[in-house]
């Protein structure tokens, strides 16, 4: 990156990717523990390159802080109120003279929500299942990236989920629900007689995540129990008896 006007980033040749001036970062996340912890981590482990100029748990305050502190990067969490997030993002860009790069942080894995989040026109998107080092890499890349390129760091499974169905909505051409890759994986393990805890251990995820996937899937399938879900999955030919039996010995 070249030096331009006062306030822009300058990278030294000798220091490789380091910047002469710290990148000014504003954090907007409503989870106190995470917000405070991330601010502390950036201020300690990445102190040479990042300065946290503000942190807040509300979109309104994020807009005000962006105007006051002129950050280079805004790291902003979004929840399901995406319209509000879109407004906040617009106001941050319009209100700050630094035209900050906006990085969206999300915990969502549901394909439809991810698709909407990706539509927010931020500069980068990163899932909270990534590491802090990966977040920092995105911060650096976002600052460096010119033009309209968008950076995305989502779990591979989430990207595949968002492509399920011919129109990306999780349905096939005849309107039948199609499960996401992870949902199908979990449902097959259910069919093999595994309890949620065992499934969680098998897939190296939490039991709560297994429950959440099943809770998301049941209403989409129009079922209320594991048995019904397995029967319907077999009817729909999402998997076969052979596939169920294939790994019974592994359980």
């Amino acid at each position, binding site marked *: 990156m070249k030096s331009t006007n006062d306030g822009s980033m300058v990278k030294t040749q000798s220091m490789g990717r380091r910047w002469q001036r710290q990148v000014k970062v504003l954090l907007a996340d409503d*989870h106190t523990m995470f917000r*405070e*912890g991330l601010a502390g*981590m950036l201020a*300690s482990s990445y102190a040479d390159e990042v300065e946290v100029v503000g942190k807040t748990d509300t979109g309104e305050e994020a807009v005000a802080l962006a105007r006051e502190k002129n950050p280079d990067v805004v790291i902003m969490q979004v929840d399901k109120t995406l319209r509000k997030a879109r407004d906040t993002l617009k106001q941050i860009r319009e209100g700050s003279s630094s035209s900050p790069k906006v990085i969206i942080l999300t915990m969502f894995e549901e394909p439809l929500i991810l698709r909407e989040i990706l539509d927010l026109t931020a500069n980068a998107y990163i899932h*909270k299942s990534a590491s802090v080092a990966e977040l920092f890499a995105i911060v650096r890349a976002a600052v460096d990236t010119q033009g309209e390129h968008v950076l995305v760091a989502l779990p591979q499974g989430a990207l595949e989920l968002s492509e399920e169905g011919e129109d990306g909505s999780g349905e096939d051409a005849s309107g039948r629900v199609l499960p996401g890759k992870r949902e199908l994986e979990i449902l097959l393990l259910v069919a093999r007689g595994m309890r949620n805890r065992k499934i969680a251990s*098998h897939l*190296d995820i939490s039991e*709560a995540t297994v429950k*959440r996937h099943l809770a998301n899937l049941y209403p989409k399938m129009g079922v209320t129990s594991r048995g019904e879900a397995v029967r319907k999955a077999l009817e729909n030919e999402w998997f076969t008896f052979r596939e169920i039996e294939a790994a019974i010995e592994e359980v």
Partner: protein
Amino acid sequence: MTPEVEVVVRVLVAIEPKMYREVLALHIRQQRPQSEVVLASPGKLEATAERTKPHLTIANEVPPMLKERGFWVEVPNDGWLDTHISADGYSTTLHDVSLEDLVAVMDKAEEELAYYEEH
């Protein structure tokens, strides 16, 4: 209250998402450098607990076996705002738990360990 006997509190952090896990672990290491902090993905929670015998477990879902053994903090990942804490025989639920709250649980665990060391 600072315990007179120096004890090392072992903390197992096994929460999702990973970014939270890392942030929390680093904060604990910085605030209580004498503690031992072990990180595990939720799927490896029980195996790691068996190996490391933590005094305090912080997880999205703490298995009953670990709840019986020591202090624990359960931070559900469906919204992440209502946190259940069990320390020193008491349990409570906190809304939007802070890092200070979690460090306070560590201090309680340290006090109790020190008490057992002394007696």
